[in-house]
């Protein structure tokens, strides 16, 4: 993907760019709001990563200005301000996602991937399928290798979330937000517990492990 990073701190900016380039993205980095805004309006980007506090034009005004010119490139805000209010303010200004510093690179990369694919809204499938695993969204039944698997509602929701995004890493915070609607850091590794329970039902009785742990990032179901 073609990415634009607007971040005034050179260490953080450099680190983000290096990491994203290693993942195969093409990345442009700007350190001031005014330069970033010009570049954002002329370049064709898939996702923009914008720091909220910038010299020149701040991140919020930058994105508001962009949205004013009908530029709908997905924007991920990076910020030191992690309060509920700042989050809402960022999203209201036209941001699509929000990441509070300091963040793990895996989190950033997973969220960029999610944003880049967001516009592709597919027809609602009735059955989600990966390898020998089948999930019927209407009858809410799950089968693997012809064997019925009994899941609790949240386990179903968790598996559905991973299946719908097969091949893409989902971080623990992304899962918490999507499955339990928890939007703060509960300071616990309870997501891991839920995943290990799900694995106990979906993976353990079978040969191949479908739910994969991605070190330093989160979980993924391989396509």
């Amino acid at each position, binding site marked *: 993907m073609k990415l634009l990073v607007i971040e005034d*701190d050179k*260490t*953080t900016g450099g*680190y983000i760019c290096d990491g994203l380039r290693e993942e195969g993205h093409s990345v442009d980095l700007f350190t001031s709001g005014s330069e970033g805004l010009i570049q954002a309006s002329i370049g064709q980007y898939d996702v923009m990563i914008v720091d909220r*506090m910038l010299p020149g034009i701040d991140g919020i005004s930058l994105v508001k200005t962009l949205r004013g010119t009908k530029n709908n490139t997905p924007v991920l805000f990076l910020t*030191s*301000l*992690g*309060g*509920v*209010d*700042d989050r*809402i303010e960022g999203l209201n200004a036209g941001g699509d996602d929000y990441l*509070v*510093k*300091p*963040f*793990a*690179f895996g989190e950033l990369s997973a969220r960029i991937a999610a944003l880049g694919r967001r516009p592709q809204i597919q027809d609602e499938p009735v059955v989600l399928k990966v390898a020998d695993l089948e999930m019927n969204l209407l009858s809410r039944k799950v089968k693997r290798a012809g064997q019925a698997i009994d899941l609790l*509602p*949240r386990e179903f929701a968790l598996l559905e979330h991973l299946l719908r995004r097969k091949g893409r890493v989902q971080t623990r915070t992304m899962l*918490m937000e999507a499955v*339990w*609607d*928890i*939007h*703060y*850091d*509960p*300071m*616990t590794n*309870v997501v891991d*517990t*839920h995943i290990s*329970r799900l694995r106990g039902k979906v993976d353990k009785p079978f040969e191949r492990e479908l739910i994969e742990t991605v070190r330093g990032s989160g979980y993924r179901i391989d396509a």
Partner: protein
Amino acid sequence: MQRVLRSIRSTPLRLTAILVTIFILSSVVSFATAYFVIRATFDSTLEDEINQRVATYQAIDDQNDLIERLKDDAETSKPELLILQYLPDQGSPISNVRHFPPISGRAIIAERAIDHRGREIAESYLARSMRVGRGQLIVAQTRNQVFEMGEIMVSVVLIGLIPTLLFAAVSGAIVARNARRKIGKIQTTLAELTSGAMEARVPINASETDDLSDISKSVNAMASSQEALIASMRQVSADIAHDLKTPIQRVAVIIEQIADKTKLSDGQEDLLDRARAETDGIVKTFQALLQLAQIEGGAVRDRLVSTDLRAVAIDVFEFLEAEAEEQGHGLHLQIEGEGQFIVRGDRHLLSQVVANLIQNGLRHTAVGSQIKVVLKKTDKGIGLTVSDNGAGIPEAEREHVLRRLYRMEKSRTTDGNGLGLSLVAAICALHGAELALSDNAPGLVVSITFPKTDPR
């Protein structure tokens, strides 16, 4: 009844009452003074008249002529106006009353002291007694005019006071009501300011220049400076957040780079992991402090919407149930009542409250303890309680645990940053909910009562 009591307590009304009393007292005193002055003048005029009459009798030289004249005068004088009594040294007394008390010189004699033979006489007389010819003469003139004048003056005072009193009472009540309305506005504003709505101001009518308007202006000035101060403090904390988090972000980046790009021994890996965990801890504490400041700032208040606590409780319960089980704790959710449990609130903050309380229970109780979340509708609103059967919190400590960064001695070793309960308290305050910590015998009960929502 309460309104009457409030009126009595109102300062302007009390002032009016005091003023009216002073007015009544001063008019009574001035009328009384006037009455006594006039009466004294009147008495001296009377005395002059009496002296004149006595002088005419004294001018008669012949005793027989004197007696004749006195008999005539006594017969023709009405005793209610003039009493004449002559006691000659020899012969029968002359009098138009049966008996007048013996006096010497000048005296004021009341009606009851005089034997008046059933005839109508005055209430009071000014009398003089002296020797005339060969006998003792008493001339007494009525003082009825003085009394009549007194009565007139009393009615003047009364009739004059009634409209004054009415006017004072009505205008006092109006002034008191206006003042109460203004004071009410000031009180409402102060209450709003206290609850964190720093933009609250007392409405001021520019044309009014009384002392209450002055106080309103002072309150507004105070609120403005307070608001500016808070805004600048918030700016400072945002700046600190930015200034400190950027270097922390760099440290995190450097740690990642060391991990990625260098070959490390197991021992070095461990050290790096610990450094990573510590940076994480710093960030989380920081985050929690910032969030606290923001919630206490009250700006979130505008975003509170109808939220179903039942859904919130179920989400959090289902999220943490696995953790509780993993740690060997029992976690139970009990919802008493059907339908939604609507409060005005922020879903995420409310879910944080429930999660914080459950996690506190998990963290601070021994393995095997039971943690129970109960949601029910009460008379006062919606009640949420989270209780455990652990060691509890001693009564003396309960106040302190709501303070930020406070940790009880025994919980220093467990993880957590001492901000969880302060955050719960701040979120409760934001939602206008009552928070209470009590004894579960054994264990701790945290009860939160959300106010009833007006159906809108």
